[in-house]
């Protein structure tokens, strides 16, 4: 009886991390592309993913001091037809996905307007 209880407990302990494991996502770049499509931003998937990663790197290295400078960088490099709103949507989708550590840069800016 006691051994059964222990076995059950062990099974539960083993099963827990498996159940709690994050749901396997197809691929970050694909997820990003899907989000962008929702905003009406198309273009090459790799290009957009790379641009988002470079945007992150520019925040990390300090080339862009804040999200506003990131938006300027993106508006220069996304397709000319991209609207200001879409630039910010690109940024809002890209930062949490590729560099969540910089999410504060986005929220700080949101605070400015509050």
């Amino acid at each position, binding site marked *: 009886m006691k051994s059964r209880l222990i076995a059950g407990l062990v099974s539960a302990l083993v099963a827990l991390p498996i159940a709690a494991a994050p749901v396997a996502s197809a691929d970050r770049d694909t997820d990003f592309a899907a989000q962008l499509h929702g905003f009406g931003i198309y273009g090459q998937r790799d*290009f957009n993913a*790379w*641009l988002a*990663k*470079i945007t992150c790197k520019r925040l*990390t*290295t300090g080339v862009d001091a804040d999200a506003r400078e990131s938006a300027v960088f993106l508006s*220069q*490099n996304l397709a000319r037809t991209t609207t200001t709103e879409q630039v910010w949507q690109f940024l809002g989708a890209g930062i949490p996905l590729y560099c969540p550590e910089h999410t504060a840069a986005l929220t700080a800016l949101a605070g400015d307007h509050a």
Partner: protein
Amino acid sequence: MSSSRFRWIMRALLLIVTASAAAGLLASPQAFADATDEYPIPSKQIETLCDAEQYLAAARDTSPIYFERYMLDKSNRPLDVQQAAEDRIHWFYSLDAAGRRQYSEDTATNIYYEQVATRWGNWAKVFFNNKGVVAKATAVCMNYPRGDLSVWDWPVAR
């Protein structure tokens, strides 16, 4: 007209046609692998007053993926080759437009002229290879600080 006379006339005509065709071929201009004002080095790069760092910083902002790939490629080279490339591009920007045009000619006509290229074929790709990249970067490079070497220290993903 007798048939032998006719034959002679035809032979003479044939000779004239053959000789003129041969002369035309021999006199045609020979093909040379000359440089042009846009190749191998685009004219805007030849004429720009920016230095290497100003241009590179501008390319980082105007052609970020092209810049990223160049930096990634550079990071995969031995350190002495990376340094040689930096030194060589500094030398290039020290030349005036006539000197750069001559250098363009020298590299176009002699594949062994550029020694850095023997160790890294694409050593100056971001500077020379793409006319669009050069046009975009040279249009704004004057707005960046001169001689800011930190622009070369670009972290690349491993």
